C-alpha cells in the first residue's frame, strides 16, 4: 500500500475512535436544547442533571441520523440494538454511568474507501450511539487543564448531547492516511447533515490506537491510545510522534507499555494519562430504563435511498467528467464548495473552467473573509455572469480579477455593469491591437533585433509592453499572436 509509514523494518498499525456530536434539536435522552455556546447550565433538566427519579427517553431523530451515517459507512444496521450502562465516577458524568451501547451497537461491520492516489479501504468495526459528558472547566489550570488548577466547575449543557462513536479496524498504515480518512469521513457526515463536525467546537473528536510491528507480521504490537487530538494536523502530528516514540523504544530493546497518552501540540510531547493497570472496569449491563432499539429493514432501505451524494461518489463523478484527482478530491471533501461548483458548472457548461474559478478566486476570497461557499456574496449566478464575459472575450483574466473583487465588495453589482462602469472591455479589434503592437515594436528596436537573432523569450517582455499600453485590457494571447506575425514578417 502506498503512503504507508515504514521505518527500520517496522510498519504503523493505526485504528481510530471517532466521536461525532449529532446536530439534533434536542439532547439524546431528554428534551433540552442541544446547542453549543449557550450560557453554562441553562440547557439542563432533571434528566441531564441526573436528579433522582429521572428517566431517559431515546431521541428517535438521533437514532435515525446514526443509521444514516452507518449506511453511508457501509455498515449493517441490525434489527435490534441495545443501550447499556457504562459506569465510572467523575463529575462530568452526572449519573456516574454513561448510557452507551456495548455488545449490540446500532451499526456494525462497515467499510469505508478513501479514493485518489494511494487509495485505501478502512473497515468500520461499529458505530454506536451514546450521550456526551458534561464539560469540565479547570479554573486556574494551564489552558483549562486539570494540572495546576485550583478548582473545577462543570457545565451540564453538553451532558446528554447525542454522540455517535465510530470505531475502525486497525487498517490505517500512516499518519497521513489517518488524516485523509478522517477528512473524508468528516465530509461524509457533513454531507449527510448529521453533524457540523467542527473540531474546534468539539463536535468531531478523534482518538487513535497506535502500534508498530515488523513489516510482514500478522500479529499486532502493544498499542497505546492517543486521546482527543482536536485538529487534523494534530492528529497527524500526534500519531507521527507516537510512532517515533514506539520505534525508539523498540530499537533500544524496550517494550511498549499499554497506556493512554495525551498529545501536547505546543511541545509535540506525549504525556501518560493512565496505564493499563489503572484502566476502568466499566461494569456494563443492559440499560433497564430503555427498550431495545428496533429497525425496520424496509425503512432502512428507503433511508439509504434518500442519502445525498456522498463524497466518495462525488469524487468518482468529478474525475469522470475530467477533473484531475487532486481537484476532485478537494471538491469531494468540501461539501459547500462542491455544491457551489456543481451550480456554477451547470450554469457555464464547462467543469474545468468552473473548477479553476472555484478553487482559485472563490476559495482565495472565502479564506480571506472566513466564509463558506454557501455564504459568499458572489453567488454562482453572479460568478457565472463574470465567467461568461471572460469566455466570450469581453474581458481578459486581469480584468476578471478586478471584476470579481468588485462583486465581493458590492453585492448589488453585476459583472456586466462593473465592466461597463469601469470601461474594462477588452481592447479586442485587430486594428486597435495592431496599432499598439506597431507602436511597441517601433519603440524597442533592440529587443526586436534580439528576437530575430533567436532570443525568443524576449516576446514576453514585448507582450508586457503591449499590455501596459492597452491599459491592461488586451487579450495576452491575441497580442502574442500578432507580435509573432509581425516579427516573422
Amino acid at each position: 500500500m502506498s503512503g504507508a509509514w515504514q521505518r527500520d523494518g517496522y510498519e504503523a498499525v493505526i485504528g481510530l475512535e471517532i466521536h461525532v456530536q449529532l446536530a439534533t434539536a434536542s439532547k439524546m435522552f431528554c428534551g433540552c436544547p442541544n446547542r453549543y455556546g449557550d450560557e453554562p447550565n441553562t440547557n439542563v433538566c432533571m434528566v441531564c442533571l441526573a436528579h433522582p427519579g429521572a428517566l431517559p427517553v431515546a431521541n428517535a431523530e438521533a437514532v435515525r441520523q446514526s443509521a444514516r451515517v452507518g449506511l453511508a459507512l457501509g455498515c449493517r444496521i441490525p434489527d435490534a440494538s441495545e443501550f447499556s450502562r457504562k459506569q465510572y465516577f467523575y463529575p462530568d458524568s452526572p449519573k456516574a454511568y454513561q448510557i452507551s451501547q456495548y455488545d449490540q451497537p446500532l451499526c456494525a461491520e462497515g467499510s469505508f474507501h478513501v479514493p485518489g492516489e494511494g487509495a485505501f479501504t478502512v473497515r468500520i468495526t461499529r458505530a454506536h450511539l451514546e450521550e456526551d459528558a458534561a464539560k469540565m472547566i479547570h479554573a486556574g489550570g494551564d489552558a483549562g487543564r486539570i494540572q495546576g488548577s485550583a478548582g473545577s466547575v462543570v457545565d451540564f449543557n453538553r451532558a446528554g448531547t447525542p454522540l455517535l462513536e465510530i470505531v475502525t479496524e486497525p487498517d490505517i498504515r500512516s499518519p497521513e492516511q489517518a488524516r485523509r480518512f478522517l477528512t473524508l469521513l468528516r465530509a461524509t457526515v457533513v454531507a449527510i447533515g448529521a453533524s457540523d463536525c467542527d473540531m474546534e467546537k468539539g463536535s468531531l473528536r478523534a482518538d487513535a490506537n497506535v502500534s508498530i510491528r515488523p513489516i510482514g507480521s500478522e500479529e499486532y504490537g502493544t498499542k497505546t491510545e492517543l486521546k482527543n487530538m482536536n485538529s487534523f494536523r494534530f492528529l497527524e502530528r500526534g500519531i507521527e510522534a507516537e510512532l517515533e516514540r514506539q520505534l525508539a523504544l523498540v530499537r533500544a530493546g524496550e517494550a511498549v507499555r499499554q497506556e493512554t497518552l495525551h498529545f501536547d501540540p505546543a511541545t509535540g510531547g506525549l504525556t501518560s494519562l493512565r496505564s493499563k493497570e489503572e484502566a476502568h472496569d466499566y461494569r456494563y449491563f443492559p440499560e433497564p430504563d430503555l427498550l431495545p432499539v428496533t429497525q425496520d429493514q424496509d425503512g432502512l432501505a428507503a433511508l439509504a435511498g434518500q442519502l445525498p451524494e456522498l463524497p466518495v461518489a462525488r469524487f468518482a463523478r468529478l474525475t469522470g467528467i475530467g477533473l484531475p484527482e487532486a481537484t476532485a478530491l478537494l471538491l469531494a471533501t468540501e461539501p459547500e464548495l462542491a455544491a457551489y461548483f456543481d451550480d456554477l458548472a451547470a450554469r457555464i457548461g464547462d467543469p474545468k473552467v468552473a473548477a479553476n474559478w472555484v478553487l482559485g478566486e472563490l476559495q482565495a476570497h472565502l479564506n480571506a473573509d472566513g466564509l463558506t461557499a454557501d455564504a459568499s456574496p458572489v453567488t454562482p449566478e453572479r460568478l457565472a455572469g463574470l465567467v461568461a464575459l471572460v469566455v466570450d472575450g469581453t474581458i481578459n483574466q486581469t480584468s476578471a480579477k478586478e471584476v470579481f473583487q468588485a462583486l465581493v465588495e458590492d453585492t448589488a453589482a453585476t459583472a456586466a455593469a462593473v465592466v461597463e462602469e469601469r470601461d474594462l472591455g477588452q481592447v479586442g479589434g485587430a486594428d486597435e491591437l495592431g496599432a499598439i503592437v506597431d507602436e511597441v515594436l517601433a519603440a524597442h528596436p533592440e529587443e526586436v533585433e534580439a528576437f530575430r537573432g533567436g532570443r525568443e523569450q524576449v516576446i514576453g517582455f514585448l507582450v508586457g509592453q503591449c499590455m501596459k499600453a492597452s491599459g491592461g485590457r488586451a487579450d495576452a494571447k491575441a497580442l502574442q499572436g500578432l507580435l509573432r506575425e509581425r516579427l516573422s514578417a
Partner: protein
Amino acid sequence: MAIDVIGLTAERAAAMLRGGECTAEELAQAYLDRIAAVDGEIHSYLHVDAERTRADARAQDAAGGDPLAGVPIAYKDLLSTRGVPTTAGSRILEGFVPIEDADVVRWGNEAGLVSLGKTNLDEFAMGSSTEHSAYGPTRNPWDPARVPGGSSGGSAAVVAAGCAPWALGTDTGGSIRQPAAFCGLVGLMPTYGSVSRFGVVAFACSLEQVGPMALTVRDAALLQQVIARDTDRDATCTGPRAPIEVPEPGRLDGVTFGVPRAELEEGVEEGVRARFDESLRIAEALGARLVDVELPHARHGLAAYYVIAPAEASANLSRFDGVRYGLRVDAPDVRAMYEATRDAGFGAEVKRRIMIGTYALSAGYHDAYYVQAQRVRTLIRRDFDAAFGDVDAILLPTAPTVAFPIGARLDDPLAMYANDIFTLPVNLAGIPALSVPNGLSEGLPTGLQIIGPAHSENLLLRLGAAFEAEHGFDPVPPAMRRAS
C-alpha cells in the same frame, strides 16, 4: 363537625365530599388532627406540611367537581414531589427538594387528591421492615412493638392507623404487598410497565412499580385508575391494556386457581398456613376450582433477585455523589469527597447492596452472577407463563410470617430477605399481584396473594373483592380504635 377518619375508605370520603357532608379542608384537617394524635408513636410520616395540605384542600373546595377531588392521600417518600422534600429514607438526600413531580403524583394532583405528606420507608426501598430508614423505624399500628413490613411500611402504617385513607407505595420485591399483609390492608403490585416510574427514586428499574395501598379492594381499584396511564417520560411504560374497573364482590364459579403446594412446605408459619388453607376452602365454597401448579424455578428467585436488584441499584445510586445536590462531605480531592459523602450518606443495608451489585457486575464475575441471574429470571417467567396456561390465577400467602418484632431480623439479612420469598418471583416475572387481608394469626394480620398474568389487574381485583367480602375483615387495628 367532627369527622371520624378511622376506617374511613377513600370511596366513602369521596361520597361525603360530593354529598356536601364535609369540605375537603375539614376532611384534611381531620386527618392532620389524627396524625398529630398518633403519629408520634407510629412514626409513619417523614414530612407533613399542614399549611400546604390545608391550602391544597381549600383549592379543591373552590374547584371541586371531579369524583375524587379533595380526597387526601399519602405518598411514599420515594416519589418525587415538586417543592416538597423527598428523602428516599436516606441521609444522602436530606433536604433535597425535587424540581418536578413524579408522574403518579402529577396524576394524583390532576384527580384532585390532596397530599397529607410523605411516608417512611427503608432507605431507597431496600428492606422488608422499614427499619432501614435513616429517620428511624415505623411501628405497626396492630402492635407497636412490631414492624409494619417494608419497604412501603410508612404507607401501610398511615392507612392502618387512620392517618390517610389510602397511600401510594412502590414494590420492587414485595414492598407493597408484604406491608399491606402485615398491616391488614389491600395492596396491588401492577403489571410491569402499566404505571409510570418517572420521578420514582430508582432502586431496581426492571423490577419496580408504583401501586395503591388501601382499606378495601374497591379503593385500590379507584387509586389504580388514577395512576395507571401511558406516559412519554418512562420508555418502559405503556399504561394498562384495558381501563381499570372497580369490582363488585361475587361468586367464583368458573375460576381456576393454581396452588404451588411445593412452595409452601418449608418456612411458612403455622398460623399463616392455617389462614391460607382456610382461604382455599373459601375459594371452593364460592365455586372456584383448585389445581396444583408447579413453579420449579421459583425457589431460585431469591438468589436471582439478590443479584439483579443490587446490580441495578449499584448503578442507580451512583448519582448520589455530592456533586450536584444532596449531602456533600468536603475532602481534599474529588475521589475522597465521593468516598466521604457516600460513606456518611448511605446506611449499612444500602452499602451492602451496592457492594453486592458492584461485585456481580465486575469483570470476571459478570457472567457467573448477573448473566446467570437473568437466565434464572427467564426460567421463572416461563414457569408462570406455563402455569397460566392451566389456571386463571395463582394463590400464595403474601408473606410466610406475620409482622415480626422490631429488631428481630436486623442482624440477619438473609432471614430478612427470606420474608419476600413469595413476592420476589412475581417482580422477576413482571406480572401483577394483589394482596388482600386473610384474617388474623395470633392477633396479627396475614395476607393472601393473588397472582395473575400480565395485565390481569381487573381479574385480580374481582377475585380479591370476592375473598374480601367472604372474610369480612375489619382493617382497623384494635389498638388504633382505642387510641381514638
